[in-house]
């Protein structure tokens, strides 16, 4: 098993005629996942690499009733409308690639998604991969390269950073620990599936035996996850690395979410609450695999 995607996953690409949309067609179809349709308003009737393009999501869903995931590849300012369109058309999983989506737009998207039992990955996610089964997005790049990094296995990997999803998976693979599903949950300050949500998904997956998190300073998702663990118990072990101990408050280090504001989102607060909840917190990169080995 795996979470979110498997060998059968069928994907719609919103914004399929754009740069990232076209790139994703290849990224996904090279790696077991089927993009079955695309949407770009005004481009009905076109085909790209054999994939039909529709004007609206409703139309795409009518012709392809089994769409499991919509990959939203539109610029930040159009993300809100695209996400609402996919939710209204009945698609139950969304992947948002764009970064720096306006916060109030993300807030509305996530609130609407929650009400409609839709799961959102992102914004600002590089993708989701279940080694050997499929991927959404371009995570891992060329198949040749990603096969060096990702191996099938027992670790669920969740990262706030795209690049670190790959790095952490590689460190695990090198010490013989493969991944059930590895994903970038998104680097924006509001994301659809933070650690708490994904942990619950991993709990329901038999294959996953340990969850490995790469966290960054900023926001309070980690503190919230720690509270959840304390209240509900840690039914699968969690290993975490928290980046940004030496970042300065008020500065933006690349990711929109990675900013300490006042006393919210500090490294210390995340470290203390995760450790207090029983999470094994690595203080060096190389400790991530060492600690993971210990618990599996």
């Amino acid at each position: 098993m795996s979470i979110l995607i498997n060998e059968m996953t069928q994907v719609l690409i919103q914004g399929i005629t754009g740069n990232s949309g076209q790139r994703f067609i290849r990224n996904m179809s090279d790696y077991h996942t089927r993009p079955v349709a695309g949407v770009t308003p005004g481009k009905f009737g076109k085909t790209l690499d054999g994939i039909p393009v529709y004007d609206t999501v409703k139309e795409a869903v009518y012709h392809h009733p089994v769409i499991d995931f919509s990959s939203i590849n539109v610029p930040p300012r159009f993300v809100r409308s695209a996400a609402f369109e996919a939710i209204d058309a009945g698609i139950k999983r969304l992947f948002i690639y764009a970064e720096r989506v306006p916060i109030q737009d993300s807030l509305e998207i996530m609130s609407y998604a929650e009400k409609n039992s839709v799961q959102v990955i992102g914004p600002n996610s590089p993708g989701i991969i279940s080694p050997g089964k499929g991927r959404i997005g371009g995570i891992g790049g060329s198949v040749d390269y990603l096969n060096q990094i990702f191996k099938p296995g027992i670790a669920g990997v969740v990262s706030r950073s795209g690049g670190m999803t790959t790095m952490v998976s590689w460190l695990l693979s090198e010490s013989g620990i493969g991944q059930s599903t590895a994903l970038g949950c998104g680097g924006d300050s509001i994301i659809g599936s933070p650690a708490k949500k994904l942990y619950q998904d991993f709990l329901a997956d038999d294959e996953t035996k340990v969850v490995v998190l790469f966290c960054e300073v900023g926001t309070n998702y980690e503190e919230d996850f720690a509270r959840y663990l304390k209240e509900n118990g840690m039914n699968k072990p969690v290993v975490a690395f928290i980046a940004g101990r030496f970042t300065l408050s008020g500065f933006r280090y690349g990711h929109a979410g990675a900013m300490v504001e006042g006393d919210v989102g500090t490294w210390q607060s995340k470290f203390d609450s995760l450790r207090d909840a029983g999470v094994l917190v690595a203080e060096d990169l190389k400790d991530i695999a060492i600690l993971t080995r210990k618990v599996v």
Partner: protein
Amino acid sequence: MRLFEYQGKKLIQNCGICIPHGSLINRSGGMDDLALTFPLVMKVQTLGPSRAKYGGVRTCHSLQEAQDFLTEHLDKEFCGETVKSILIEEWIPFDSECYFALRINPLLLCIDFIFARNGGSGIESKTRNDPGLLKIFHFDPRKQLFLYETNDIAKEIGFSGDLLVQVSQLIFDMYSGFRKYDAKLIEINPVVITENNRVYALDAIVQLDDDASFRQELEPIIGPSTEDKPRASTEREERALMIDKEDYRGAVHYIDLDENGDIGLLSVGSGFSITVMDILNNYGLQPANFCDCSGNPSKEKVANAARLILGIPNIKAFLFISGMVSQPLDISAEGLVIAVKEMNPSIPIYVRFAGNQEEEAIRILKSAGFINVFSRRDSVEDVILSVKAGLEKEKSIV
């Protein structure tokens, strides 16, 4: 983006909220043309907390007192910031003061309305000791807000009669502004009630969402915008912005950290870059800068970023480092070779290439004469230890 008090006040005034009459002074003779009535209130315009506590707010009873305040603070340092302007306002005597705030709640996916009937300075510590002083209402961002709802809120906070109507309208206007201007936070502390039952906002902290700036036209309301960080940009940061703008391929995020830092740092990916900063610090090395150059940059862009960093005056080593990246590293290698050949730096250059096209990248560097070149086989920690050993060896020779 955090607004200065005067900007935040203009913004909420634009939404219909009453603020004291005032003027902004940004030069020493700035008060000369104003018809002043005393007492009046003078406030330094800085972004840090607790201005009142450190003497940045004064009620002045005479022109002399006001002049003294101006001389004392204008263009001077105040809690680490330079005071570029001073707000001069009518003095409003009041009977009671409250705390009103709106903020995004990412966990509950709503907008929080937060109130304390007794506000004023020191509210943070008061409510920390007694969280019951705060009343919080969660509002669904997809709903339209109605006046009847703010009436409910005003009643629940403890207002009645004409004040209930006024406070309700203020909350309503505050929320409209919050949505209209893509705010992350609007905090009015205090909202005051005067003897004859008028309601004023005496201070305002407003934070806007930079990622929504494409749909905002704020300059006509609040003047030129401020920067989204606690200090002004350095010259190198400005140059990094130019490097990023001039070439659409890839992205450069640059921050100057410590002018006495040992290491000029160029790394790939923002999550990885802050991780490397941490590990450098863990091993007793100070990065002079943060620079993430990722997203498939061209060799010219990598070269420009490397030139910028090699030009930091006090660094003792330059480190280019990648985690496991999918962008082709041979292109970064070509960029590094261009910059290093041109600058011919006297400090040692360390490079760790891990990721796509790593072998080719390493070959390019070695044939260009680079010595300290590492691969994915060398852990990030080990590479940093090598840098450290190199610096210590250098020190012992000197």
